[in-house]
């Protein structure tokens, strides 16, 4: 019964206009974002620039972070990104005093005047290097930590500063490590390249990048398909007919859900093929032993939980309210997930975000060190989607038995009768 219904539902999905619009959007995303992307070539000695990297050196993190804090302390306003949007925080007197105390303990700077003098001399010292009349990229202020300040005490005080600012600042645990941006050396660049070609076997890094771009859209698009499918029975007046069938609610809803998830994974796998073949071609030319299943692994491991969750949200809210409310709920969730992840683009900071970001083919070590967190994240969303599907089945079953009906029209009638 389940198999028959699954095939039927897959056919229904294949006939859906919304489904083909989703496929078109995914093709558009692929073409515009990654279709023409060049495969990274081996860095050569003597290149002018190898890019920047976040230093993991504790001394670097301390001096760059303290430089940023002192600069904002002088300005009197602090920049935070609680959900990825710029937020300028101005503190009250008590909070300002607390920050002053943190600055004093971490840097030894006891007054705002002293801080201003240090900043002025820092930028003054950089001016001659550029020459008269030339524009130059000023290096960010660096402040040496007070003598005897341990890294543990530093992190403790920075966490306090972040809490005072309401979270999302450069001093909190999430963003602190990315404050110290230092130029990459040839050795850094070649190490990253070797990680990509040897440990990630080339396709791993590009499959992750592919998943990053696709994930942004797959965090929202599935909801349109499931909401349409759930509303379809009512729209075509078939709800009562299906409800009276002997097939169980579990089989009806589960087959619908599985079919939609399968039908959404299918185009993702197909769209990855041209990129995958380019990677394989490059790998064979460069003598790299590429992982032929990397794109499949990442599609199932990275993207499927996102697809499952967005689809389950759509099903649940449509069944609950008989409206397109799921679109709004998932839209809001997508908004926060996307903007909340803008400071984690480099990867290795996946947290509990529905749309984990890793917008580079590099940083294998970041991915590796945060793998346990990523795995926990993905498992959580699979479980959440299964819970939502189970609740959908429950609601659907109650509706079939005539025990549950919530619609805005009924609420309106109820109000009138009262």
């Amino acid at each position, binding site marked *: 019964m389940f198999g028959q219904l699954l095939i039927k539902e897959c056919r229904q999905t294949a006939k859906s*206009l*919304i489904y083909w*619009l*989703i496929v078109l*959007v995914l093709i*558009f*995303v692929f073409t*515009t*974002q990654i279709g023409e992307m060049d495969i990274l070539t081996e860095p050569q000695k003597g290149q002018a620039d190898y890019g920047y990297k976040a230093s993991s050196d504790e001394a670097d993190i301390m001096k760059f972070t303290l430089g940023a804090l002192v600069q904002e302390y002088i300005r009197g*306003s602090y920049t935070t990104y*609680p*959900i990825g*949007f*710029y*937020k*300028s*925080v*101005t503190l009250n007197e008590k909070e300002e005093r607390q920050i002053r105390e943190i600055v004093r303990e971490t840097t030894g700077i006891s007054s705002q005047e002293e801080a201003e003098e240090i900043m002025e001399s820092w930028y003054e010292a950089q001016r001659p290097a550029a020459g008269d009349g030339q524009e130059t990229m000023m290096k960010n202020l660096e402040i040496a930590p007070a003598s005897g300040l341990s890294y543990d005490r530093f992190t403790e005080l920075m966490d306090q500063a972040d809490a005072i600012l309401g979270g999302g600042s450069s001093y909190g645990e999430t963003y602190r490590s990315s404050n110290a941006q230092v130029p990459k050396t040839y050795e850094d660049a070649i190490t990253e390249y070797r990680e990509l070609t040897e440990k990630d076997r080339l396709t791993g890094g590009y499959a992750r990048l592919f998943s990053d771009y696709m994930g*942004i*859209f797959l965090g*929202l*698009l599935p909801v*349109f398909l499931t*909401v*349409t499918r759930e*509303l379809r029975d009512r*729209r075509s007046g078939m709800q009562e007919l299906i409800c009276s069938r002997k097939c169980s609610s579990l089989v009806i809803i589960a087959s619908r859900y599985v079919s939609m998830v399968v039908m959404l994974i299918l185009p993702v796998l197909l769209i990855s093929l041209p990129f995958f073949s380019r990677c394989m071609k490059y790998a064979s030319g460069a003598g790299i032993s590429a992982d032929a299943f990397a794109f499949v692994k990442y599609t199932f491991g990275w993207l499927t939980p996102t697809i499952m969750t967005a689809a389950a949200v759509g099903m649940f809210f449509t069944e609950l309210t008989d409206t*397109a409310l799921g*679109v*709004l709920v998932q*839209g809001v969730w997508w*908004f926060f997930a*996307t903007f909340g992840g803008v400071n984690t683009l480099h990867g290795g900071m996946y947290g509990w975000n529905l749309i984990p970001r890793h917008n580079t083919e590099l940083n294998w070590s970041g991915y590796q060190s945060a793998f346990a967190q990523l795995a926990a994240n993905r498992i959580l969303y699979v479980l959440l989607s299964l819970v939502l599907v189970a609740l959908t089945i429950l609601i659907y079953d109650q509706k079939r038995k005539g025990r549950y009906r919530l619609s*805005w029209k009924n609420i*309106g009638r109820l109000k009138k009768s009262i």
Partner: protein
Amino acid sequence: MEKYWQIEKVNLKYHIPLHILVCVLLLGVSPLLMGVANLSAEDTAKVLERYTALIGIVMLTPVFLPEQDRNLRELVSARYTDCAAVYLVRVLGNVFVLACLLGMYIFMLYYNQCSFPAVKYFLGTLAEMLFFGGLGLGFYGLTDHLVAGYMAAMVYYISAIGIRSTNPFLKLFYPFSMSAGSYTEKYFLFAGAVVLMAAGVYLRCRRK
């Protein structure tokens, strides 16, 4: 005139209170999520273009929803009043509500010491709202599917977030131009919005 006022009264009373509530909630929670005080012109534009303008999708896309039921649609089209007039009254009413909500939000930003050209930003953001809403309405009219309308508008928004202003796919219809210092796109967005809404209403009225 009395007839059109009646149409709008019904719209306000039965069709859009929930949508207005969603918009008020979205705007109301914004100070908790992002900076709305002491912002520069660029940062104010960012808030208006990337967040506030989204309420255009909520308010304008579902204009045809009350007649989603085919039987009801037949009944409405059999009436003396042209269905296009009904839809246009609803669209104008919803645009007026949007303008009021945006006006209040702009006033709040102004009151919070954000420095920006208020009238220019009001009109620019309204044009963007209308374009997003028009896109939803146009696709709803084209496909007779509310979800397709929401999808078109939201996909456009996401694409614009990920695509730079110079990208040939968007060019003059780039919705976040004010924060990049350009205003020309807003005229095109407004013109596009008018065309899309007119097309949506026309397509919907043709579909009996």
